């Protein structure tokens, strides 16, 4: 079985069944992969290079920390990939997106208006929680469809603040 692995924008083709080796993007490597006794830690030797991974599975994703760097890893095998390809094309980049409060807090300012076009990374809400002001940003470019809060509002965890198209 070959696997397609997605990390951010990059794709890796990995074949663990190749003859005596593991192929990563077609290149063969000697791999020795061990779990540390039922923990979330793994030791991996790739051609004698030593790495440690800390792994947490969240649904279909893995969060994998390699020597402290965190990666969100999606793995698809050949079959599921072919199915998903048809379905999900561009889904993430369009459709409605609701910005929800990641914590309870107080809205300090709303630097956007309904109808405004915003680039990815644009600050949408300044939320005060604990001692800090926190800027909540647009995860992608789009148009502001609704603004459901105003400065001074106290909001609950998970409450929708802004809706983007």
């Amino acid at each position, binding site marked *: 079985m070959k696997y397609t692995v997605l990390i951010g924008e990059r794709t890796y083709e990995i074949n663990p069944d190749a003859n005596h080796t593991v192929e990563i993007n077609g290149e063969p490597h000697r791999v020795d*992969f061990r779990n540390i006794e039922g923990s979330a830690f793994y030791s991996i030797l790739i051609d004698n290079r030593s790495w440690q991974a800390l*792994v947490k599975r969240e649904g279909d994703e893995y969060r994998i920390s390699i*020597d402290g*760097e965190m990666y969100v890893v999606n793995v698809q095998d050949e079959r599921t990939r072919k199915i998903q390809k048809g379905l999900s094309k561009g889904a993430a980049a369009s459709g409605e997106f609701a910005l929800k409060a990641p914590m309870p807090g107080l809205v300090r300012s709303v630097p956007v208006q309904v109808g405004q076009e915003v680039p990815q990374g644009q600050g949408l809400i300044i939320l005060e929680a604990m001692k800090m002001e926190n800027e909540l940003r647009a995860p992608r470019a789009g148009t502001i469809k609704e603004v459901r809060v105003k400065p001074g509002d106290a909001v609950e965890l998970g409450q929708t603040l802004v809706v983007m198209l």
Partner: protein
Amino acid sequence: MFKKILVANRGEIAVRILRACRELGVETVAVYSDADRNALHVRYADEAYNIGPAPARESYLRIDRIIEIALRAKADAIHPGYGFLAENPQFARAVTAADIAFIGPPASAIQAMGNKVAARKLAMRVGAPVIPGVYDTLDDFAIVQAADEIGYPVMIKAAAGGGGKGMRRVDSSDAMLSSLARAHSEAAAAFGDDSVYIEKALTGVRHIEFQILADNKGNVIHLGERECSLQRRHQKLVEEAPSVVVDEKMRAAMGSAAVNIARAANYVNAGTLEFLVDKDSNFYFLEMNTRLQVEHPVTELVTGVDIVKEQIRIASGRPLSLRQENIIMRGWAIECRVTAEDPFNGFLPSTGKITNLQEPTGPGVRLETGLYEGMEVSLFYDPLIAKLCVWGETRAAAIVRMRRALSEFQIMGVSTSIPFHQKIMESTNFIGGHFDTRFVEEKFEMKHGGSEDKERVAALVGALLTHERRQTALTIPPTNTVSGSSWRKHGWKT
């Protein structure tokens, strides 16, 4: 010495104080909110009492309950830690009134230094330099005149202030009157007192503070300086001792200013005098923190003095056993404040359960923490989850050791500031000692992007785990845990 000390705090600082008590052979009492029943400080103490719901105002800020429990548990002293009630003169007063020793300064000193204008006047009285400004209550017209004399930019600050509230910078005479009006109303709203003062706005300054110890026999010494310029929104991120910009002569001058101010305030116990230092090595008294400081470990590491034990000894009435000439700084210490915040996302607080933890140790590493596997990081309290401190023979040795220790520190479950600290330790400006209080906000940027090598390993791990699950699924029912693999593919074996 005391028989039993109640620690009116939580998290790493509560554990720090409980450790000192255990070493001194003093019994301990912890208090905890509903959110902290399983916390390390509860498990570490000899006794533990619930003091209310999770929000601090209903638990850790409840003076009445804390004193009630201290009396019930027959504690003869209370240590407030930092934060919460540590700088609340009512608390110090209530503790003393209940015939319990307060491990900290007298309420009068907390109160006197709590008023920023009064503190600055006291500093001026003993000849310590303060930032050029006008500390008298003037009418707005007189303030504008004074500002013209001092020269722009100036800062308007609330006399009763703190935490940046009511503070604003004014760049020219034109904007002065309208800014004053707004500062008055902000100060009134925040502190119930609309009086403000002005100070010259200094640029390119460093934040350097001096640790002092004072007993109740009038002995006052300082333990040298801490460099705390690496800040973000007035929150310190990295501290070190000593400072690259302080030489012996400057240390003596600043240290003696610190000691003189503390003495003039009739200060007793541990305290910290904060200064700003400009590019020409002029220093200006800023304010005094009348409590144990978060970053006290860096001073402990270079001086060898255990500040918490000294606090307890002083509060029990003992004279200082240390003299100024015994205080010798050796080597270099750095502290990183590890917080549950995402440095790649504007330091947004991160909450969740700590599922895995690997803590750094080995030569020259000291970890102050309340972390444990299974702990819930909530939004109820400060995002500080651990203080990672290192000591090295030189500043360079301390920096590389901090890099090593950061690389060993693995936390799964919440985002942490560790990548930020790693970046700082790699920054040429930091390594060269070139930074001021605006460095992090103005000249430092966090960008994602691990190494390609590591990403490839992550991809491989993901594929192999999925591969294993597929194969396991044929024989045993799948579960949601990831474990047990031992997988090997060798072209040849060594």
